[in-house]
């Protein structure tokens, strides 16, 4: 029985876990770095404790501090979220040593599957087909060059200890290898505390399809079907859906079976995801297993009606899963869009800052899993995810129409976001027709130019009015009180924060 959970994370996933705990009557302990005192997860938890400076290595990645805070607060369990220490076996072990339940797989399973090269060895043993590549990390640059030539260009560099697209680089020729290796290792070190990378043959225009598995400590393993995650930028997912428009019942059963076999072979317990690549000829390759809750878990939740964090808590407490494979039913279609603080029209440059205006989408079958609020600051120290916008509909066309509506409603000012580009993807004929691949976004991005005409006139009018009121307010010296009713909120302090 779990009574109090320390959530060793921040942002939307910390609020997601806190919400699930609250609904189960479990007390929650948040932790926060100096950059996060005013973060949403701090407000939502029952307790909140400081854990150090903004740099992740000195706070959210500091195992000793996290364990000390958890014990001091009387927590009996720790949820790692995703990212940070979620796939760190040493953290899982440190929790166990301190008498804390780690809400995730056993340390041994993390080691077996979290190390992507070890996972590839298991998949090979289980005769699950996989992409050609190295099954050991590559050490020096020379070894890497030899391995790359052996695998054959183009190759993908991947972080051995990571996921989520960090530490990934595509290399098409020898000349690009050194720079790409350096950046991949540096990103991997920052993100996972381990710079090991391996190489994989790059599959052209693949689809990225993954299977959600749930396993309890009593040997029971089930799958909850697939997610399609082909819309990516910089090897990071941007839009996910469940089910995949590409997968029929037969392929679902085949993928689900392969995923369950891999999970069983690794002695897996808790929620996990087995990732596959599907090439243009419909060949399926095992890619890796993510030994944690995925960012995109909500699309599976909306379609199955199952709460994955609740299932995690239940399994971690040693209880049986309570769901048989034949009880899993899929109803309708769900899509998730990641709203990141990035400028898609400036090379996806991160856009940290203060959210000065926020009006999230809402209404029927719209779910907003956010870590932000109006007035919140997106710190420059962490990843760019502001919120996950999820919709459900009875079929794919209905879900797409609903997502288009929701993106149109979602307003964020103060930081640039991915909303405009998400709206353009969702409206694209190829997306609507289900013609997806991991190169989709790269292919369509150059087409996403503004249409000009009336919309441009409206934009010019809005920009001119903003400047007009700014100058008029500034000139009067009594801005806030002199403004007429029509403009009464125009001159709040902090407005035009972006120009500071």
């Amino acid at each position: 029985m779990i009574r109090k959970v320390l959530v060793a994370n921040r942002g939307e996933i910390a609020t997601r876990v806190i919400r699930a705990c609250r609904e189960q009557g479990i007390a929650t302990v948040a932790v926060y770095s100096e950059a996060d005192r005013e973060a949403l997860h701090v407000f939502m938890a029952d307790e909140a404790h400081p854990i150090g400076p903004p740099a992740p290595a000195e706070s959210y990645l500091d195992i000793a501090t996290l364990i000390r805070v958890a014990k001091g607060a009387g927590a009996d369990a720790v949820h790692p979220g995703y990212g940070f220490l979620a796939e760190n076996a040493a953290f899982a072990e440190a929790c166990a040593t301190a008498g804390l339940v780690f809400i995730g797989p056993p340390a041994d399973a993390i080691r077996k599957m979290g190390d992507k090269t070890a996972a590839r060895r298991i998949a090979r043993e289980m005769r699950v087909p996989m992409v050609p590549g190295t099954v050991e990390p590559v050490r020096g640059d020379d070894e890497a060059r030899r391995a790359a030539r052996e695998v054959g260009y183009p190759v993908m560099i991947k972080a051995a200890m990571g996921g989520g697209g960090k530490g990934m680089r595509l290399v098409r020729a020898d000349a690009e290898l050194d720079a790409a290796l350096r950046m991949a290792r540096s990103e991997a070190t920052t993100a996972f505390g381990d710079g090991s990378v391996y190489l994989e043959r790059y599959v052209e225009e693949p689809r990225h399809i993954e299977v959600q598995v749930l396993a309890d400590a009593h040997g029971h393993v089930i799958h909850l079907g697939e997610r399609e995650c082909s819309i990516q930028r910089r090897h990071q997912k941007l839009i996910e859906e469940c089910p995949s428009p590409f997968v029929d019942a037969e392929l679902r059963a085949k993928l689900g079976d392969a995923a369950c076999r891999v999970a069983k072979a690794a002695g897996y317990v808790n929620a996990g995801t087995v990732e596959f690549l599907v090439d243009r000829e419909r060949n399926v390759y095992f890619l890796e297993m993510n030994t944690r809750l995925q960012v995109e878990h909500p699309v599976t939740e909306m379609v199955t009606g199952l709460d994955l964090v609740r299932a995690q808590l239940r399994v971690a407490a040693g209880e049986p899963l309570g769901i048989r494979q034949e009880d899993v039913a899929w109803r309708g279609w769900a899509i998730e869009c990641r709203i990141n603080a990035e400028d898609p029209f400036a090379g996806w440059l991160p856009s940290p800052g203060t959210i000065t205006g926020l009006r999230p989408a809402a209404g029927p079958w719209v779910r907003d899993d956010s870590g932000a609020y109006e007035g919140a600051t997106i710190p420059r120290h962490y990843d760019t995810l502001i919120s996950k916008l999820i919709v459900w509909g009875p079929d794919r066309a209905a879900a797409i129409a609903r997502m288009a509506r929701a993106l149109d409603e979602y307003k964020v000012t103060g930081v640039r976001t991915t909303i405009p580009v998400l709206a353009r993807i969702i409206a694209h004929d190829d997306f609507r027709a289900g013609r997806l691949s991991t190169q989709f976004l790269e292919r369509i991005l150059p087409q996403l130019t503004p249409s000009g005409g009336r919309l441009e006139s409206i934009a010019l009018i809005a920009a001119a009015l903003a400047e007009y009121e700014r100058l008029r307010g500034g000139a009067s010296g009594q801005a806030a009180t002199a403004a007429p009713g029509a403009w009464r909120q125009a001159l709040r302090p902090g407005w035009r924060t972006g120009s500071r």
Partner: protein
Amino acid sequence: MNFVLTSGSRTHRVTVTQENGRYRVTVDDHAWDVDARLTAQGIFSLLIDGVSHVADVDDHAGVCVVDVGGETYSIEVEEQTRYIIRTRGGAAGGAGGQTVKAPLPGKITYVSVRAGDAVAAGQSLVVIEAMKMENELKATAAGTVREVRVAAGQAVNAGDVLVVIG
């Protein structure tokens, strides 16, 4: 009040006047009657001839970025007199020069050029790490590196000059 707005490569003359709580906005000789309200910081409701638009306006490093109808416009807004002074004065920076500034705060993880190096358009100059991502800054045109003001490991703020290319 008269403004000059630059959107993409085109400039537009815009005049704003106010009467009875409404605005009359003339854009390149086309007049619009606008009922405008600011409903949250940067979120505008515009009613123009009964058509309803919501426009988000962010002043982002001196440029208004406007999201409207699912599209994004980057618009430079200048009061007319200032525009005239600036453009009559000529471009002070000289032709062909590039000043590469940090687009956001972060840490320099790699510098791939030195003063005196010749660089091609698109060549990588500096890598800056922020929000868990490595972001490459590239040369926008060919030239010679005049100055490199940062080194790997150094923290920088948004707007800091990193490299000057002449």
